[in-house]
């Protein structure tokens, strides 16, 4: 990739900037290398390319989407990823097992605890460690709180991408309360670094419990109030109904998981299909909807918030006493082997495939992220809709670019 002659920076004339070819035009400057690229980058009659560049007002992060448009209708789209690729898997290969827990936090940064839960479960399988029951209950409790925070944020972003500026403020109030609670428990508002191999880092404390009790008395009404803002809003409902409809067979073919799959009618939830932790002992339903459109995905996540509240309630009532972490040596050397662990995150199945070679660093930590998979489906759902619907569809699939790009 040759750079053309540099030009002076407008800021500082001592600096010469070389042109980066091919970053800013929608069409790549090399001939297409794959069938799909050739098919996509060939313009039909009356079509044009628009680049929805890595920086745009949709707050999902840095995603670049090249839209092929026929007027206002989207004919096809090609997402370009990698603007947030930080090389986490490679860094994890060069870090200790304990260090990888904090390395995987920023992947799906809105729901950090699930990012940690999955590798921790995989390592516990490698080490044959049994987690104390109190630690499991605390994990489920904090995980469900994080799920509610993530879904609350989803509600706000969904409305923000459709143009509503109030619901995001309400969502952030919800999220701030939950996140301050988790900060009292874990010490951090966002990238918690709380789960440890064999348990959790710190026990429940007075600050956390008082905030949690206080919030639980108000939570249901607050959520209903937010819903009252959106669900009966005709613009919101009519924009989202019958948009981006997926049927269950297509969803399985696209390897979708989580609320996106359950909105198509399949009641598949890892907590029930392949139970882990103490979920077999808890009583909760798997909300499912049949329509498979954006509105169904939105309403399903609201239902999941309510189920999460049920789970939190049960956890609080049944919290056992005991240690919060299993006794493990500080230098961990699991015997060579492979382990796979999957958890049900708010976006779908978040799983980790860990290979150990007997040393104190994992040999390979493969992270499977649901947002990455779901973003593939956008190209399937969009043709025929308008540009403004692109944002609605992407928001309803709820991708987090940290997880997409790893």
């Amino acid at each position, binding site marked *: *990739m040759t750079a053309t002659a540099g030009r002076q920076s407008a800021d500082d004339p001592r600096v010469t900037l070389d042109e980066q070819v*091919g970053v800013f035009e929608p069409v*790549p400057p*090399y001939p297409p*290398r*794959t*069938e*799909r*690229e050739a098919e996509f980058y060939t313009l039909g009659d009356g079509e044009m390319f628009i680049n929805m560049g890595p920086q745009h007002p949709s707050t999902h992060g840095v995603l670049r989407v090249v839209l092929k448009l026929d007027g206002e209708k989207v004919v096809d789209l090609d997402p370009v*990823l*990698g603007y947030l*690729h930080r*090389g986490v*898997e*490679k*860094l994890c*290969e*060069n870090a200790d097992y304990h260090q990888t827990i904090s390395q995987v936090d920023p992947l799906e940064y809105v729901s950090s605890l699930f990012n940690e839960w999955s590798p921790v479960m995989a390592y516990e*399988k490698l080490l044959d460690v049994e987690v104390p029951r109190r630690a499991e209950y605390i994990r489920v409790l904090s995980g469900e709180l994080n799920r509610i925070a993530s879904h609350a944020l989803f509600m706000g972003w969904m409305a923000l991408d459709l143009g509503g500026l109030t619901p995001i403020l309400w969502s952030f109030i919800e999220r701030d309360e939950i996140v301050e609670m988790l900060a009292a428990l874990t010490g951090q508002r966002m990238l918690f670094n709380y789960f440890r191999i064999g348990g959790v880092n710190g026990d429940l404390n007075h600050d956390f419990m008082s905030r949690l009790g206080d919030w639980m008395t108000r939570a249901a009404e607050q959520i209903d109030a937010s819903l009252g803002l959106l669900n009966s809003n005709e613009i919101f409902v009519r924009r989202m109904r019958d948009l981006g409809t997926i049927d269950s067979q297509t969803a*399985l*073919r*696209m*390897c*979708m998981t989580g609320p996106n799959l359950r909105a198509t009618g399949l009641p*598949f939830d890892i907590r029930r*299909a*392949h139970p882990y932790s103490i979920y077999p002992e808890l009583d909760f339903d798997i909300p499912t909807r049949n329509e498979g459109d954006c509105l169904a995905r939105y309403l399903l996540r609201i239902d999941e918030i309510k189920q999460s509240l049920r789970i939190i309630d049960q956890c609080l009532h049944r919290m056992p006493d005991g240690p919060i972490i299993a006794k493990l040596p500080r230098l961990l050397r699991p015997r060579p*082997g*492979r*382990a*796979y662990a*999957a958890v049900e995150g708010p976006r779908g*199945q978040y*799983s980790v*495939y860990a*290979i150990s070679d007997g040393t104190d660093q994992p*040999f*390979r930590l*493969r992270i*499977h992220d649901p947002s*990455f*998979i779901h*973003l*593939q*489906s956008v190209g*399937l759902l969009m043709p025929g809709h308008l540009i403004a619907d692109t944002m609605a569809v992407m928001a309803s699939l709820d991708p987090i670019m940290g997880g997409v*790009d*790893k």
Partner: protein
Amino acid sequence: MDRLFRRRVEARFADRFTGPVRQRHDETEIRIGPADVPDVLRTLHDDPELRFTYLSDLAGVDTGVVMQVVYHLWSDVTPDWLRVIADGLPRDDPRVPSVTFLWKGAEWMEREAYDMFGITFEGNRDLRRIYMPPDYTSFPLRKDFYLADDAARSPGGGVRPMEQPHTPQEATVATALRRIRS
């Protein structure tokens, strides 16, 4: 650990295995050669008694000696995860048939394996780089791709100041000599 399932899968695919069927915790692992991937996965997907319609993960692995592609599948007939390892790919030109004919969602996962390892998936209509810029020439997750501060441990690296060791434990005779000579 589903022993019944293990016997069923051994009976069904015994001629394709290149290694023993292993079970640990809640996972069952089978190893096949790369050429058998479409047949085995199609059978797993289509057979009404196996029903592995849910592809959970597609990963590339570089063991340093060979490359592997690892598929994780789930079905409602067994409580275990099924791990299919397509083993024995040569490190210089790893090629595996693609499974996008069964699961379209595997397309991006295969793109990622290509981007990170260089594994070519034959039949994937869109095998281009997904994370790294399109003109990037290396494959980052390979074991011979060293991070900058590991370059000091690699055979030819450790030239830049950032790659030089800073602590006495890291310094070896080779790097000390290189520093003296440069």
